[in-house]
């Protein structure tokens, strides 16, 4: 068995691992008032890793016996994860330096560990790698959710996230162990080939195993009925952590789910697609309806992100027994939605972090009259909210449009109708925040002040949201799909 390693293929991961170890060691020798340097090192590592990923564009490489694959799907996800990592560092630097100054180093260490897991997740084509990557994404997440150690709410956020997270992993692993027994392999492509046999199409054991695995990933992407942890965890965690969890860990969950469903289990799509239809409809409907009743902005964004996960799940529902064209379109639609969602949701959270500096209550009422206090910030928030609502010409519109047309082409008009109905509910609560910011008078007229790092992150995100909205052709050029998908 050859053991030659393709080190260039894993270079982004190596740079990120080196950086996170460097942060951990350097932090030990920094005095408290100089701990901000940790964020600089972390940022340098993320940018280095981003560069290494760029050098791989166009390549198709496989190493570690096919467990680790670099293809356009993996690279697209990696670039997105690293961009999100850089933005998360920007939006958390001030919050941390003012809040939990002495333990910042650990925060960046954990954050980068989690992002390392995401990079691995995008490249893993094996149950074992998927499992290790998923745990590497989640385990640091449990710790950063409880990062405010003296705060009982933060503790509670951590324990809920932890118990649900570990439980879901156990359920997923049980499913994986059974699939491994049936197919005699843990490689996704080999599993897909073994399960292509007509007798395997609706074998109860296989169907049950897929159900276990989907349930496990359902927790990670907070799909109804596995969503209970998400609002509590987001609300209790420090706000930058909520931003990070709602974006990055959800996208990582989808990166795994897309590969599992379209590479390993495409021949069982007759069986799982109806399940996904129910899950998608329940997720978007419940998320949107409960979001209407929220008074806390972080909780509202939590339910909104649950609803958004519903839209991302929808393309999975239309591929039941469909031809390769529909499958390819569904795959691309879900992927595009995840990419666009990540940036617009991160933008909304960045604004919440700014307002949180003035008032830590995170109530929606704090946003009354924000326009008169911080016009630039409010305009940015309006962009993000309208994009989340799916108003053209912002990026969110195209995300919804791709999912919608995938549903129509997949002969699932009723799903498209449910989606439109839900978008209207979503529009209502996104717009009502916008209206409060612009129309209501502010209690407190003082300015909030946007620190440089946060301002930079917000400006970048606005540019992304607008640019993708104006030039949606970008996605047609990239043709984002896994080269391993037998489509």
């Amino acid at each position: 068995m050859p053991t030659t390693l393709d080190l260039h293929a894993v270079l982004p991961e190596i740079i990120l691992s080196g950086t996170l170890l460097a942060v951990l060691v350097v932090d030990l020798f920094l005095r408290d008032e100089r701990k901000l340097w940790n964020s600089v090192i972390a940022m340098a590592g993320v940018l280095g890793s981003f560069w290494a990923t760029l050098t791989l564009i166009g390549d198709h490489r496989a190493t570690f016996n096919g467990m680790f694959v670099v293809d356009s799907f993996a690279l697209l996800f990696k670039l997105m994860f690293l961009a999100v990592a850089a933005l998360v560092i920007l939006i958390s630097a001030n919050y941390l330096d003012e809040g939990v100054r002495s333990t910042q180093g650990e925060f960046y260490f954990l954050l980068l560990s989690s992002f390392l897991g995401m990079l691995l997740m995008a490249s893993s084509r094996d149950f074992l790698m998927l499992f290790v990557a998923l745990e590497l994404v989640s385990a640091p997440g449990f710790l950063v959710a409880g990062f405010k150690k003296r705060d009982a709410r933060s503790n509670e956020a951590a324990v809920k996230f932890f118990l649900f997270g570990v439980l879901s992993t156990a359920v997923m692993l049980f499913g994986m162990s059974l699939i491994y027994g049936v197919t005699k392999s843990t490689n996704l492509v080999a599993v897909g080939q073994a399960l292509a046999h007509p007798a395997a199409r609706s074998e109860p054991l296989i169907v049950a195993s897929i159900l276990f695995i989907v349930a496990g990933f359902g927790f990670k992407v907070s799909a109804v009925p596995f969503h209970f942890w998400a609002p509590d965890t987001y609300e209790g965690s420090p706000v930058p952590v909520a931003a990070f969890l709602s974006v990055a860990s959800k996208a990582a969950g989808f990166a795994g789910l897309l590969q599992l469903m379209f590479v390993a289990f495409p021949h069982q799509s007759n069986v799982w697609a109806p399940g996904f239809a129910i899950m998608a409809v329940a997720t978007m409907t419940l998320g949107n309806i409960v979001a209407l009743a929220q008074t806390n902005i972080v909780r509202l964004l939590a339910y909104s992100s649950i609803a958004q996960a519903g839209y991302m799940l929808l393309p999975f529902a239309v591929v039941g027994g469909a031809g390769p064209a529909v499958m390819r379109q569904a795959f691309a639609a879900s992927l595009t939605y995840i990419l666009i969602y990540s940036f617009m949701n991160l933008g909304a959270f960045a604004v919440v972090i700014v307002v949180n500096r003035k008032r830590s209550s995170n109530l929606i009422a704090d946003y009354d009259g924000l326009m008169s206090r911080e016009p630039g910030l409010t305009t940015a928030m309006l962009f993000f909210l309208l994009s989340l609502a799916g108003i053209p010409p912002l990026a969110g519109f195209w995300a919804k449009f791709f999912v919608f047309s995938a549903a129509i082409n997949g002969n699932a008009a009723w799903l498209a109708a449910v989606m439109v109905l839900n978008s209207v509910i979503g529009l209502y609560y996104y717009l009502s925040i916008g209206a409060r910011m612009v129309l209501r008078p502010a209690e407190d007229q003082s300015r909030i002040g946007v620190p440089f790092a946060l301002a930079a992150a917000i400006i970048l995100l606005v540019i992304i949201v607008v640019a993708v909205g104006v030039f949606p052709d970008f996605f047609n050029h990239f043709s984002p799909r896994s080269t391993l998908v037998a489509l």
Partner: protein
Amino acid sequence: MSYYWQYGTLGALTAVGGAFVVIAFLGNRLMRPRKPRVEKATTYECGMDPVGEGWSNTHIRYYLFAFLFVIFDVESVFLFPWAVQLEKLRPQGTVLVEMIVFIGILAIGLLYAWKKKVLEWVK
């Protein structure tokens, strides 16, 4: 639409399962005598009745040591398959380097614990 019917089996199983639970609990409730006492109403947990104070504190430092032990102990599990295969794989060169990197990362963890004064037995 035919594949939706396959979920009919699942539905039937769910119904039977639900009925089983309802009947079992309902039957139990109808037939049993009901004489609650304080002692009966307490939650059943296995083990002996605690005598005296239930909480006897173990000092936190035991937890830290136990935790460090568990982590390093379990990580060593990766050494065994490596050691078995070492002779066979050594011609290809990098096997030794890989293990040095692995142990180096563990050593950084130990360095962290040491600098954070976890390894000192504070009285």
